């Protein structure tokens, strides 16, 4: 709870700072503030309480994920300083919106009541619509915003309908009550329908096939920093809250529903990877790779009771490598009208460090050992085989082979192609973010237990 309040306070502070035109100070202050919040959150880790008659329920799960979100936000905020150089005047808005988005995210994982969940997801989405379209004069950005807005609100409608059905069935928004009642003998058909609609709405947010079509377009159109935000923070948030929804309302998922999940996850992996193969725009490519990763993360829904740790681990691994990758992309594609692979030619010569970092993050996404991505996949496979879906695992493996294809396309471009022109020196921030992110990733790879055992 305190986390949520502190974050919102921070957001307001950002807006105030502009009034006292201290725009210079905004980014540093925010970062400091976020660090403080992070500390606060971690300090609360073991205290499980609920506030405002169960509107908010702080649990290990929520705190763990909230801390992850905060960390990601810190990275993104620090990147935005460099990214918004041109529009220093509006920087406070950008930052503030991000902070509010974070608050929404936190709400989504620590809700104790569907109303809170709904508010959270709406805060997140609306903030995201704004950020997606934030590059006003750029048609691409507008289009991205529009598409995301239309489909997003459509999905919100579905979610709302789902909530409504659940309410109809249970007569309450309080998840614990719902959980309690869901055990009872004969439930009205509306309840499962509600669950399904809710799930579908969230599947849209995590961009799982066939609800993924928005992702590539929006990722490509939005300003790179927003894309980074979507592909790391938002995806993780959506996945976490979907997991929480299903687990906390212990809607004991029927076998047929599991089949649906299996199919969707297979479809997401396969479609995502295959579509990514022929992309020339890196952001688009990462969008599709994000789709496939969503497919991977969906595997956790098959072993709801046990796989919270795995999900957290996978999410952090994926998000961290994403941050590292996107910081490099931001550097490379600065002052470029597109993000095509061409821009990455010869990065290995021009800027070995960043090239190495990008390589590392891609390897992590591909699931090569010692990077966290490998263990993330490993534990997922382990859980899934344990719950008896060997076929799904085999499909997943085949997919990770395909994925190597396009990840390495980028690596090859960096190391074997000739650079098209020299680049100027990079700002310190990007180096810092990229290095820290990849180091964290490798650290996770070396000591997986630290995260894996967090939620047991």
């Amino acid at each position: 709870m305190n986390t949520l309040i502190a974050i919102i306070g921070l957001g307001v502070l950002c807006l105030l700072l502009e009034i006292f035109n201290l725009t210079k100070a905004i980014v540093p202050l925010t970062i400091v503030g976020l660090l403080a919040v992070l500390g606060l959150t971690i300090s609360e880790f073991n205290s499980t309480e609920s506030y405002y008659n169960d509107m908010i329920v702080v649990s290990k799960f929520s705190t763990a994920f909230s801390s992850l979100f905060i960390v990601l936000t810190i990275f993104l905020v620090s990147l935005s300083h460099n990214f918004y150089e041109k529009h220093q005047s509006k920087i406070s808005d950008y930052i503030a919106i991000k902070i509010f988005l974070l608050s929404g995210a936190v709400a989504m994982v620590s809700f104790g009541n569907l109303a809170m969940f709904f508010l959270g997801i709406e805060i997140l989405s609306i903030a995201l619509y704004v950020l997606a379209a934030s590059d006003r004069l750029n048609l691409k950005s507008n289009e991205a915003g529009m598409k995301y807005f239309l489909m997003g609100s459509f999905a919100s409608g579905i979610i709302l309908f789902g909530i409504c059905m659940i309410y109809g069935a249970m007569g309450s928004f309080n998840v614990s009550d719902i959980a309690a009642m869901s055990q009872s003998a004969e439930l009205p058909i509306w309840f499962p329908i509600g669950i399904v609609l809710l799930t579908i709405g969230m599947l849209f947010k995590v961009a799982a096939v066939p609800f993924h079509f928005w992702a590539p377009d929006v990722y490509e159109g939005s300003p790179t920093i927003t894309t980074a935000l979507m592909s790391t923070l938002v995806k993780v948030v959506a996945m976490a809250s979907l997991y929480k929804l299903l687990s906390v309302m212990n809607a004991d998922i029927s076998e047929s529903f599991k089949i649906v999940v299996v199919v969707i996850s297979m479809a997401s992996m396969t479609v995502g990877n295959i579509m990514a193969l022929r992309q020339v725009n890196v952001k688009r490519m990462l969008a599709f790779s994000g789709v496939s990763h969503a497919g991977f993360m969906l595997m956790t829904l098959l072993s709801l009771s046990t796989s919270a740790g795995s999900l957290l681990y996978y999410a952090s691994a994926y998000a961290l490598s994403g941050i590292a990758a996107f910081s490099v992309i931001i550097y490379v594609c600065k002052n470029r009208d597109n993000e095509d692979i061409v821009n990455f030619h010869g990065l290995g010569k021009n800027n070995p460090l960043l090239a190495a970092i990008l390589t590392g993050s891609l390897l992590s996404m591909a699931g090569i050992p010692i990077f966290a991505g490998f263990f993330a996949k490993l534990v997922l496979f382990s859980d899934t085989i344990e719950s008896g879906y060997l076929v799904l695992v085999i499909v997943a493996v085949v997919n990770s082979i395909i994925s190597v294809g396009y990840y390495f396309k980028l690596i090859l471009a960096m190391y074997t192609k000739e650079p098209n022109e020299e680049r100027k020196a990079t700002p310190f921030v990007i180096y810092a973010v990229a290095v820290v992110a990849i180091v964290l990733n490798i650290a996770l790879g070396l000591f997986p237990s630290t995260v894996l055992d967090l939620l047991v």
Partner: protein
Amino acid sequence: MNVSLILIILFVGALVTFLAGDKLASKVALFFGLAAAGCSIVLLNHFNLGENISFISQWISKPNVSFALKADGLSLAMVLLTTVLTAIITFSSFGNDYKNAKSFYALILFMSFAMVGTFLASDGLLYYIFWELSLIPIYFIALVWGNGDVEERRKAVVKFFIYTLAGSLFMLIAFVYLYQKAGSFLIEDLYKVTLSATEQFWIFLAFFLAYAIKIPLIPFHTWQANVYQKAPTVGTMLLSGIMLKMGLYSIIRWQLPITPLAASEYKYIFIAIGIAGVIYGSIVALRQKDLKKLLAYSSLAHVGLIAAGTYTLTLDGLRGAVLQMIAHGFVVVGLFYTAEIIYRRYETRVIAEMGGIRSQTPKFTSMFLILVMASISLPATFNFVGEFTVLYSLSQVNVWFAILGGTTIILGAYYMLRMFQHSMLGETNSKVFADVSMNEGITLVAIIAVLLFFGMYPKPIIDLITPSLEEILNQINRIN
């Protein structure tokens, strides 16, 4: 004092080399390579004195993975091979200067680190991790420092990477499946797992895919020749000298003991595959125009024979296979180095463009000839010891296997001598061929010395590996 020391030395070596800068890199790398080799010899000594030099500590609680390095004779033999060859290979590269040398040599050491890890790891997942790690450095070595047209190279190398990764990922599934059964990745526990025949069959197959691609056995060898040709010679040496031994070693260490039923059930098929590789590789080698490609196919033939030896599931087969692995490791490195030496002078790998070198450089020619003779396993060379033992074991399974596998004696002589004749003999070449330099001489002599010494006195190695092989054999023969 335990085996993790070698890993530490190599890893630190890689870092230091990278930091040392392009000027010093090669020397630093050589230093650490030698240090690792020395360290492994010392450890070998400790081991022979009966000390326990293994190392184990819990790493990940869930899934239950531990950082376990078990050093028995077999592992130590392979580690020794790796470290010594790494030193030799590093030294051999002194002649030519690479751009961005620091990364290059760092990668070499890192690869050696990963391979040593593979040979030592006694925890399934750790083993798998090292196995995968070894793939990355060679990928970059071949990609960045390779030769030939960039597009061609890219195709070859990416194919190699994806292909091998594909294979090993199925091995990963097998391991995870076993983990579900055993509750741990430790090899002892994996040995204990009792599996139904069908389970064994599929696990066996998953392993086989990984190893068949790595070794490579036909028909999974298509990546080999191109990569060997495109990679820089150092990379080729690492690949052919050490890396493909990882696959063969793994057959002995992991595949056979874990799935003994399947192994004994289908051994004839896999022996046949190996021997088919012998014949196929030899025949393809006959008409190769490119020296490195010819050597690649010859090594395809040899490893085919070794694999056949391992699948006989007899002590002779395993022992011969290990001996032949070591011997082949040295000889193939030597041969690729000769190719490199010629390339340094004539800038060609096409055999037809060589010839008439002998009269210009008798020393080099003699050393080349010795290597050729070793590779066609003339008695009194190390390769003969291995090849004889393997063929003997095959003959015990079925004489026809020995006869078919023995064709390598004839065909091998055919293509190697033809290659030697057209590359070295004939009318004196118009282009001058500077005689071998100091470094080159030392490298070749070192390799030849090893081959000849162990050819006449293989006892030390035999005594080293035999006990561990017998242990493994007991595992294979256990009834479950």
